[in-house]
């Protein structure tokens, strides 16, 4: 089976129903994506599939074939950390940090769809569990990242 992960084509030899999460973590040793519940309830395993947040703990790897998979390891680009990651650092969001890969990818997905989310939009789309309760800071960081992305886009548009 061929997967495209963070822009790279990778072949794996696994059962088609193995959740993408375990292909990433145990077959490819890409441990940035976390196991939290195994039932799509907590969001720690969130990755982007064709730019959209998906919970990889219940997504059979066969469904990800032929799609662009982005994990936390692929969020930064050669030009540096993403706007969301930068905002996450500025706002000092993580505590234990375990849920944060999933939280960051959920935020990336939200901003891919909505360049100026309201608090209500954030409430609706960010349903990840953080046991340390970093929600207040994550919300502030999402607003800040949205602004950074809009400003970057305006700059690009004006060139």
């Amino acid at each position, binding site marked *: 089976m061929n997967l495209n992960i963070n822009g790279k084509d990778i072949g794996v030899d696994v*059962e088609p129903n*193995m*959740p993408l*999460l*375990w292909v990433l*973590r*145990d*077959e490819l*040793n890409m*441990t*940035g*994506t*976390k*196991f*939290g*519940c*195994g*039932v799509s*309830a*907590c969001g*720690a395993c969130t990755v982007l599939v064709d730019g959209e947040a998906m919970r990889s703990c219940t997504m059979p790897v066969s469904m990800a074939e032929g799609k662009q998979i982005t*994990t*936390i*390891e692929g*969020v*930064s680009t050669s030009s540096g*950390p993403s706007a969301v*990651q930068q905002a*996450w*650092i500025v706002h*000092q*969001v*993580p*505590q*234990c*940090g*375990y*849920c*944060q*890969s999933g939280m*960051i990818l959920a935020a990336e997905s939200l901003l891919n769809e909505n360049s100026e989310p309201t608090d209500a939009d*954030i*409430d*609706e789309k*960010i*349903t*990840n*569990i*953080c*046991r*340390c*309760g*970093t*929600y*207040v*800071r*994550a*919300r502030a960081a999402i607003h800040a990242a949205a602004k950074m992305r809009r400003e970057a886009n305006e700059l690009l548009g004006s060139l």
Partner: protein
Amino acid sequence: MAKKKIFTRRNFLITGGVLGTGVVIGVAGLNSHVNKKLKKYSGKGMGEGDSINAWIRIAPDNTVTMAIARAEMGQGVYTALPMLIAEELEIPMSSIRVVHPQPESPYANTFLLTQKEPNIFKGYSMMEKVYAYLPIIGTGGSTTIPDGFNNMRYAGATAREMLKQAAADQWGTNRNKVKAEAGFMINTANNERLSYGELASAARNIELKELPALKKRNEWKLIGTKADRLDIPEKVFGQAEFGIDVRKEGMLFAAMRHPSVIGGKITGISNQAEVEQLKGVKKVVLTDFGAAVIADNTWRARNASLMLDVEEDDAGNGNINSEAIQASLEKILDEPPLATPEAEGDVEAALSGTDKVIEHTYKVPYLAHATMEPLNCTALINDDSAEVWIGHQASSVCKDVVAAATGLDKENVTINVPYLGGGFGRRGEPDYLKKAVAVAQQMKGVPVQTVFTREEDMRNDMYRPAALSRFRAAVSEDGEILAWDNKLALQSVSHSSMARIMPSMATAPEDDEATAEGAIHLPYVMKNRRTAFGDYASPIQVGFWRSVGSSQNAFFTESFMDECAHAAGKDPYEFRLSKLNDAPRFKAVLEKVAQLGNWGANDGKYRGIALHKSFGSIVGEVCTISQVGEKQFSIDEFACVIDCGIYVNPDTIEAQMESGIIFGLSAALYGEITWEDGGVVQQNFPQYDMVRMNVAPNIKVHIMEVDEYPGGVGEPGTPPAAPALANALFAATGERVRELPLMKAGYTFA
């Protein structure tokens, strides 16, 4: 003649010897008060360069490796302790690299057991020596800063002076002519500079004849400032290694299958051969703790473990259920108490002297910890050595457990502590280590990572106990508390937990200070008061859960204070305030939080207030809610004020208050573990839900400026959250909720 105090590293060179790796063992700054054995550290994993002492190693490029033997589980210890060292050492935070050292004596947390400020550099008391000798290395009870506040600064200061002397020697000048600045020593006569990295090798042999003076508070550059956490970038880039992320060459993965009944045992597996044929499965093993499947992938191991047909012995616990537990707890309330940790005046006389006794019973359920990272441990057991990788709050306990389980000498046991994906007390327990070692012992020479599924994690926790609290009070017309009588019924946490963690220190239920902690020594003036408790003995394992006794007792006492206020026709804030004239720190926190939370505002919202001291810090919270429907509320805001004495990293303290409040709210809204047929009913987050973004309130935090020794910050934010919310609900509805979680009374939040 007084003994001459010599703070040096070299005398340990002589007495301590050298390890095979060439790393010198010894600790700078210890004098003759401390046993030689307490000085030993291996320096294992501390990277390049020269060790100045047990905490500090400086590489030629001026990178400073700090050995921090406290678990980083989100509470910021990998930043706060380095700040204390860096303040005195005079280095920028950006030059620091943190490692978790082996559990060795210099790193003991004596405060955890003595609750007293230690000073390793002046010499330990007898009990402190014992705790250091064992050693006791743990992260809990919000003790990291209280234990390390002076010691870590002295660690930095002694190292700084040793480096300074090395520079002075090189320049042929006096130490007082040398200035330390941002990782360099400067010759004040000619501005010549040497980096710490250039001096480290000479500095390690310097003898100091005196304990250096610590910087005065007005000289601090780092302590008290919002320092960026050192661990955040790697957590944002997905590079932080948690226990579950450990990957070793040739490693295998195991899934545990626990007995379905608490205290039960899996006695046999009828389809072992069949399961061993499944793809990826290497071996099915039966241990004292349950069955396990070892496979080449966690998912394959987990699926196979579910297919095991097991025979079980329920140890006679198959009839444990929540209704029976509740009936037992109620019965205990009617029986004579086991202990009465607080009694002042004559409560019975005061209660019989009035016809207006306020009497109510409060109730909270068992709670699971549900750390985001499910429990796991990687173990490699060889014939002559063992190594484990485990996110654990007590590395010294880990070493003891592995040595005992394998029969190996402790020096052949290596404990690696990666990041913890949450701890909250759960990761102080040895069970998941014992289980992983038992599994790996059946696959010698191969690293095996044993992972609990969420379901196994939730159903095999060491729970916060269910508890009842029955109050009787008499309040005078003018609002004086004439009598306050509180009787608690619950399982003893320390009795249950310490028997597992440190059996030699197991506490009898009647001596368990955690049971009534937060219910006694209330700051309010009361004419007569009494708090007693009874013990519920059960095979259910209970454990330390963020804020422990205060997690339920603050809900009980601060809700009932509100009831007393309303019975007297007083404003709940004014009522409390009037009883704090002898407790100025409490009073100041209460006044400040009332202001921060707009207490008394006429804005159509409802407010509740709560005040509680735990782990050396006083926290006041005002919860503001809006009604959005029948029994439907929005939790708009929490205002939070903390007096933790001198504060180290205010941004971390704010984060811990935010965290503590959300943790308390999750329990208040949804948290309930129930029992049926000897097992836990809840399996996963859908049945044991958490506050999420849509429910999380805005949180404002204020830290009081108080020049007192630091208190803890990891736990004290949690206790006031539930009563502040319950009191706000009363303000909104006139209904007093006396049982958690609130969802049971039909409340919903959005």
